[in-house]
């Protein structure tokens, strides 16, 4: 049986934990709102770009000049996985889910005899993958969106990726990230970036369209932009998911701390009563003995 003093300290410390977790929950909630606003703001650009891409690819006659970002390198030997996780923990299974999916992919690809490379965005992913697949990690981006997630950051990652592609470091590239469904659910999604998969429905081709200078040239400029834009929207999804996951995790933690305080307080009061009863009995029996 812990002493009264110990119980009291314990209650105090759990109360402090509860204060922190509930504050973290509120911070996550406000960050989540900002991320959602940013995601909504980026949507017109993404849809317009996708529409242009569809129109272009539908009007393109494939030849040897067609950008490699669309057609691929003709091989599928080296796979690059871009793993998007958070820099910090305390957000439930958010990081673990991405890492689990990444591990599964790596094993599957290696089983097929493919070479795998990893590009980590976010410190947690690197930390969790380093032990088993440390030699596969080619680069890590830390502190992405620490202050405020911006398009420039997505551009930096995109440029890095494109340089690697031009240097022939990989043939296929996929993103592994958490897609934001709701505050309560984030779904790990794998999206192929290179070669870009054109949407099957090509209803965008209504009228013959003029291209200036020509379709292939525009496509050559548009595809690298598309990589960056996809990166940006994945970063936003990922960041929103992180805050959502953290909010849920911290909400649970706050509730658990509340339960624990109730239990400890009950214990404390029982011990206190027992102690008083014991003392009374001692006094009474002492008085009787005199």
């Amino acid at each position, binding site marked *: 049986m812990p002493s009264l003093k110990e119980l009291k300290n314990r209650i105090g410390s759990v109360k402090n934990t509860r204060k922190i977790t509930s504050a973290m929950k509120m911070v996550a909630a406000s960050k989540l709102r900002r991320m959602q606003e940013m995601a909504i*703001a980026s949507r*017109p*650009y*993404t849809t317009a*770009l996708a529409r242009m891409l569809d129109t272009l690819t539908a009007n393109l006659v494939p030849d040897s000049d067609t950008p490699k970002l669309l057609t691929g390198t003709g091989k599928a030997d080296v796979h690059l996985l871009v793993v998007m996780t958070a820099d910090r923990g305390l957000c439930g299974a958010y990081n673990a889910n991405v890492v689990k999916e990444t591990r599964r992919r790596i094993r599957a690809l290696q089983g097929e005899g493919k070479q795998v490379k990893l590009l980590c965005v976010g410190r947690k992913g690197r930390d969790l993958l380093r032990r088993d697949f440390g030699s596969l990690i080619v680069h890590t981006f830390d502190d992405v969106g620490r202050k405020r997630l911006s398009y420039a950051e997505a551009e930096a990652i995109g440029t890095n990726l494109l340089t690697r592609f031009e240097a022939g470091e990989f043939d296929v590239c996929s993103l592994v990230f958490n897609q934001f469904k709701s505050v309560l659910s984030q779904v790990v999604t794998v999206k192929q970036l290179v070669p870009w998969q054109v949407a099957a429905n090509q209803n965008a081709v209504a009228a013959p369209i003029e*291209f*200036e*200078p020509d*379709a292939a040239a*525009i496509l050559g400029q548009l595809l690298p932009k598309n990589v960056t834009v996809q990166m940006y929207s994945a970063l936003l999804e990922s960041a929103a998911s992180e805050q959502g996951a953290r909010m849920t995790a911290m909400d649970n933690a706050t509730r658990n701390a509340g339960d624990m305080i109730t239990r400890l307080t009950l214990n404390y009061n029982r011990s206190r009563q027992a102690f008083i009863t014991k003392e009374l009995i001692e006094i009474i029996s002492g008085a009787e003995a005199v």
Partner: protein
Amino acid sequence: MSALHFELIAPEGMVAAGAAGMVTLPAEMGEMGVLPGHVPLMTSLQPGAIGVYDNGKLVDRLFVTGGFADVQPDRCTVLAEAAEKVSNIDAEKLTGQIAEAEAALAGAVAAALPGADEAKKQHLQAALNILLIKQKILQAS
């Protein structure tokens, strides 16, 4: 003559949207004007200024660092990575940015190792060129 619906979209949000009588674009093959009923056209843009006209008068000028335009008979959508109203450009800040870019370029040239730094140098040069174009537009307006 119905109006043209003009949209300027950046990745971080819509910069401008609304009806316009005519829009001029800094297209890859030279400055071009878009009137309602234009044939469907797609073009890449150079760094430069977009002009929005209504009733024959210039109502808005927007600076873009490059991008793409998707022209349909009833609308004109411009995708730009960075866009700014010309009236919002801060001349002093711009001068400072140009000085910085020049210094960075000079530094890169001075420390140049052949080959490896070429891409970086080109990148810096491109950034500087964009800033210089921006200044020219500002001075012309």
